[in-house]
């Protein structure tokens, strides 16, 4: 299990999805959770950084567990998830600050894999009961969602899947960002169709209803 946490922790940091001490991961084992230590560096995880505690009840290990433990627990209690990843992908966080309800990828890969990533917001964004409640609600229906201005939570039966959704989201958001920059650059150039981007998909308007 440590090997899995190290592998995806390293990838999460090195692909720029989180900062040196940001983000957290967990897996569920029946009525137990293994979650990364609060303040741990995902790029340098050791056995001491994996904290096991109860799914329902606290024990002394909650002193060491990630500050998002309450959110992870709520997700496991309300979904069939077996793994959770929480990171702060910069382009996705930036887009969450300008998109009102959801990030709708415009690229092919993002459309296939994600279709729609809803955005929710709370006043208290870290380790709060409000986030826990919202996260559990969102992840009953979606495999990943954005907490406005903070980051994403994603789930899967395996850490690899949860990691994939974060990675796909950030790529999709980077493409959206680049496209909008190009649109901005072309806004006053009629020969470049102004600020248009060229749609290639069918049922485009429906992605928002996913």
């Amino acid at each position: 299990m440590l090997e899995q946490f190290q592998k995806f922790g390293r990838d999460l940091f090195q692909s720029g999805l989180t900062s040196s001490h940001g983000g957290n991961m967990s897996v569920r084992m029946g009525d137990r959770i293994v979650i990364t230590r609060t303040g741990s560096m995902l790029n340098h995880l050791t056995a001491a950084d994996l904290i096991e505690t109860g799914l329902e009840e606290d024990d002394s290990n909650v002193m060491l567990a990630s500050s998002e433990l309450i959110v992870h627990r709520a997700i496991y209690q309300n979904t069939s998830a077996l793994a959770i990843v929480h990171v702060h992908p910069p382009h996705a966080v930036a887009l969450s600050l300008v998109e009102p309800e959801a990030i709708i990828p415009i690229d092919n890969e993002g459309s296939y894999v994600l279709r729609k990533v809803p955005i929710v917001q709370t006043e208290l964004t870290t380790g709060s009961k409000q986030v826990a409640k919202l996260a559990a609600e969102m992840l009953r229906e979606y495999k990943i969602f954005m907490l406005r201005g903070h980051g994403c939570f994603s789930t899967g039966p395996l850490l690899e899947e949860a990691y994939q959704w974060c990675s796909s989201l950030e790529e999709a958001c980077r493409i959206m960002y680049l496209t909008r920059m190009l649109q901005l650059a072309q806004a006053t150039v009629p020969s470049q169709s102004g600020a248009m981007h060229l749609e290639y998909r069918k049922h485009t308007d429906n992605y928002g209803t996913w």
Partner: protein
Amino acid sequence: MDGWTRQVLRVNLSSGESRVEELDPALLVQYLGGRGLGTHFVYNEVVPGSDPLGPDNILAFCTGPLTGVRLPTGGRSSMSTYSPLTGTVLDANSGSQFGVRLKWAGFDALIISGRSPEPVWLEVSAEGVTIHPAGELWGLDIPTTVEHLHQRGTAVVCIGPAGERQVRFASIANEEGRSYGRGGTGAVMGSKNLKAIQARGTVKPSIAEEELYKFVEYEARKMVSASPRTSRGLPEFGTAVLVNLMNRYGVFPTRNFQAGTFAGAEAISGERLREEYLVKRGACWSCPIGCKRVTKTNGATGEGPEYETIYALGSNLDNDDFDTLIEANYLCNRLGLDTISAGATIGCAMELVEEGVLDAELSFGRSDLLLQTVEDIAYRRGLGDELAEGSRRLAERYGRPELAMQVKGLELPAYDPRGMQGQGLLYATSNRGACHLRGNMLGPELLGIPKMLDRFSHQGKAGLLIVIQHTNAVIDSIGLCKFVNFAIGDDFFARMMSAVTGMKLEVQDLLLAGERIWNLERLYNLRAGFTRADDTLPARFLETPLPEGSSAGHVVHLDEMLADYYRFRGWTPDGIPTPGKLAALGLDELPYLQEVVHA
């Protein structure tokens, strides 16, 4: 509330009476349809321990809310009963048209009870049911029976001579070539003196949310065409695409699971099937994948063989004579036999001969005896009458029960669990006995779906298997084919359900229903007397390492996985659902709970 017709047609063959009942909408949401609904009927109406081949058993043909809807693979239906082969609750799932026509006739379910004094066939339509004397149909094989009864706008299910003689692994054919295959469905139908059912239905179901439906259907077909499994592998080679793959992984069962590699694999492979035997490809109703094969050999034409059949009648018998294998497959289809149990039982007999405890001509590699043996089973002639009881009863009869490759009486499918730890746990815990269709770990352990896991590790398998078991229960209940799950996942199923029914159903609502169905099946089996001791594998898989190939040296570490499995499920260490778990699933008010669950 679109998607369901909310009507069940009941026919009592003892009295000849029939009636239509309204189904409680809450029940449909709770169990979805198909397998879930059928399990509900069996749990409440068939006393475990009674004679599965007696008049008190039922045949419950159940459609799902997506059956008969033009979504990818939306033609599936289930048949639930109390199995004469295993003594467990049983559901068998099938493509083809019967479920579609039953739904279009206006029924979520057709439940048949009692026993007709004389052989009969049923004509089912929106007007109800007419019981006809089977007369000249009794004794006919499946293609001939279907030919007699099939008309435009109808679909036919029937049994062949094997079902008439109550062979314990006789199947029910759904049109020609597709089957409610496993566990002895055909024997139950035969025990009722019921030869066939013709369903006539023409009223297509309405869709609650057209806009969402069109979008989900479009996206789903896009995903199916983008997946290499559903757009290339299965359409091009059929399920036989797995022969060479499984052989390379060292999990291709050979000589009654004495080995996991077969020297003759190439001769019975999907590649050879395509090159030398394929006449045309086909597909079940509304299926864009099209894994069906129409083949020909020695002048005969028929469907298949599927991968599982190639193992059962091929490598498992040390048989690389593809022509004979294909003919034996046609024969099973014609006479109405489950090919897996037929081949596995013959393989068991061959090992009994090899061990010197059964005196018979059969032996590994004797493909020249295969066709006659299959026919003898179907007609219960000579040794065939003993084989018709299935491998467990056969091996017990000769004092060597460990030579039957079965769990809870159901013969193993075509994946040696020693090279797939999670598959071993699946076989041990599957509610209808050893089965790959109750949560196949082929995906995560060998094909990388959703991701590739270490197939030899037993760690982390229990939790994933449980999720897959629930997903499979959902797919079987809503009316889709498991192969579509190679391309689309739970989020699609939830949106398909929402679009068709008009109810807002979330992914987790469906998975909870899947867990409810799984637990209901478990409760029935507990009532039938099954215990933790039955959640096991033949000793061969636990004690004898595979001798060669890329899985050589491995056995299944079942005990470690099983303890995790029970705990993760919220069951006691003896494998009994706790009162808390049942309350969470809304099953705490069920009848008969006091027989098995203790506070």
